[in-house]
């Protein structure tokens, strides 16, 4: 895992809620889980804020300026990942470290077999619209557990074909049920929110918040990952970046298409 857990020990996040509420998207040093906390189930969706300077990125990954700009032109790397900040040496460009390293690794792995245009197609947020799966695919491909599907069936008993937005809703539901932040009664609200709105925010840096106040659950879908501040009674139970969920889901679908069912635990590597 290319992560420096001890980059800034003062910032070690005490709890998920406390850290989230203070988080600023442009902060360089926010990050850091103590090594012992299991990140696996979160799929990287909680730790995404550490930035990396362009120079360091090129050094770590060994790619050149030319390649970086070529990939940007082909839209393999989204414009919104280029974050400009002033530093003492002038203006510099930073990237969200984890997303960028994952993306570069993915591109380097696939660029020998696929052309850049095919890669662009694959990373494009729009390419998902073609995906339709049937119920048995969901279970075969380990996209959801049968328990989650059971919960979903209570709400949508007759659905046979699953579009990508359904898959995404199921995928997020599955994660939230599995990490224990949500109970099955709340699933309906989540699915409602995601089905109605998630397709509008695919290509943005969108973010899902799950909060509770006095035990009453609520879901918020933010089109941009901005700071939001709640009153003290509200507790942020979970926060997910849709873009990283989408990527994880795409990897899952793609990989399974290529190689058949795999163990689900592979997806985070």
């Amino acid at each position, binding site marked *: 895992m290319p992560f420096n857990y001890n980059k800034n020990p003062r910032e070690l996040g005490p709890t998920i809620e406390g850290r989230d509420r203070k988080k600023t998207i442009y902060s360089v040093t926010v990050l850091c889980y103590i090594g012992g906390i299991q990140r696996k189930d979160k799929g990287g969706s909680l730790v995404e804020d550490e930035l990396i300077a*362009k*120079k360091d990125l090129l*050094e770590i990954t060994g790619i*050149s*300026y*030319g390649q*970086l*700009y*070529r990939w*940007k*032109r082909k839209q393999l790397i989204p414009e919104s990942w280029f974050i400009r900040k002033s530093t003492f*040496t*002038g*203006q510099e460009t930073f990237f969200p470290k984890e997303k960028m390293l994952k993306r570069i690794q993915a591109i380097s792995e696939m660029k020998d077999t696929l052309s850049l245009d095919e890669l662009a197609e694959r990373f494009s947020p729009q390419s998902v619209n073609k995906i339709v799966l049937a119920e048995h695919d969901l279970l075969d491909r380990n996209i959801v557990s049968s328990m989650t599907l059971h919960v979903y069936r209570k709400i949508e008993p007759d659905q046979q074909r699953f579009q990508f937005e359904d898959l995404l809703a199921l995928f997020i539901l599955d994660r939230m049920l599995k990490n224990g932040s949500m109970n099955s009664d709340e699933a309906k609200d989540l699915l409602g929110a995601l089905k109605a709105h998630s397709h509008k925010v695919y290509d943005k840096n969108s973010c899902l918040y799950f909060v509770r106040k006095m035990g009453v659950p609520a879901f918020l879908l933010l089109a941009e990952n901005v700071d939001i501040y709640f009153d003290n009674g509200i507790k942020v139970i979970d926060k997910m970046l849709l873009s990283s969920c989408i990527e994880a889901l795409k990897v899952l679908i793609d990989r399974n298409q290529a190689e058949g069912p795999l163990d689900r635990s592979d997806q985070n590597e």
Partner: protein
Amino acid sequence: MTEEKKNLTISGSGSAPGGCYEDVKINGSGKIQGDIICKSIDINGSGRLSGDAKASSIVISGSGVIERNAIAESLMVNGSCRIDGNVSGERIQVNGRGKFNRDVHGEQVRVSGILTVGGELEAEDVIAEGPLTVGGLCSAEHIEITLSGITSRIKEIGCGTLSVRRRFPSNFIGQIFTGLTRKKLIVESIEGDEIFLEDTEAKVVRGNRVTIGAGCSIGKVTYKTDYKKDEKAIVQSAIKE
């Protein structure tokens, strides 16, 4: 659905609605209201398109204004042209004066007149023999700039290979005046694999192989493999990474 598309020709002065056409020709002064989709647009006098223009070829030989986006396989400006929206085209050639106020995406961009881009310029190849002004990032696989005319200004350059060269004046009088009227390129930052510069002012240059030629004034150079500097160039610091 096999309705034959009609040609649209304005000779003299007139205006026409937008829509689908085969060939569109404006020979005097013409105005087209609304979006237009057609095979070719040919403006020989003065033309104004108030909507989006989508065509496989757009040729502007007089003066043209497109108030919104222009999408074309080939876009050729021989006179003067202003485009207020985004421009995308495989081949973009500006022989006169082009003022594109937003982003430009192309494969081959050739400039032998004056090109001003308000936003970003992205292409595979950019070959400019006249002043090129880009308000944002100029990103291409190959960029060749021959300096002439007035000063070129580009905010940022990101590329595979970049070469900026001065043009040698062909006649004797020109040679006398080169010292006085030296053309230059002013950039904030340049990043690329292979960089060759002449007569360039830049704050930062980063690349694998960097050659700083005569007339340059560079703040900071960082390079990976090769670095050469002409004795007539001013470089404040050069660092190997």
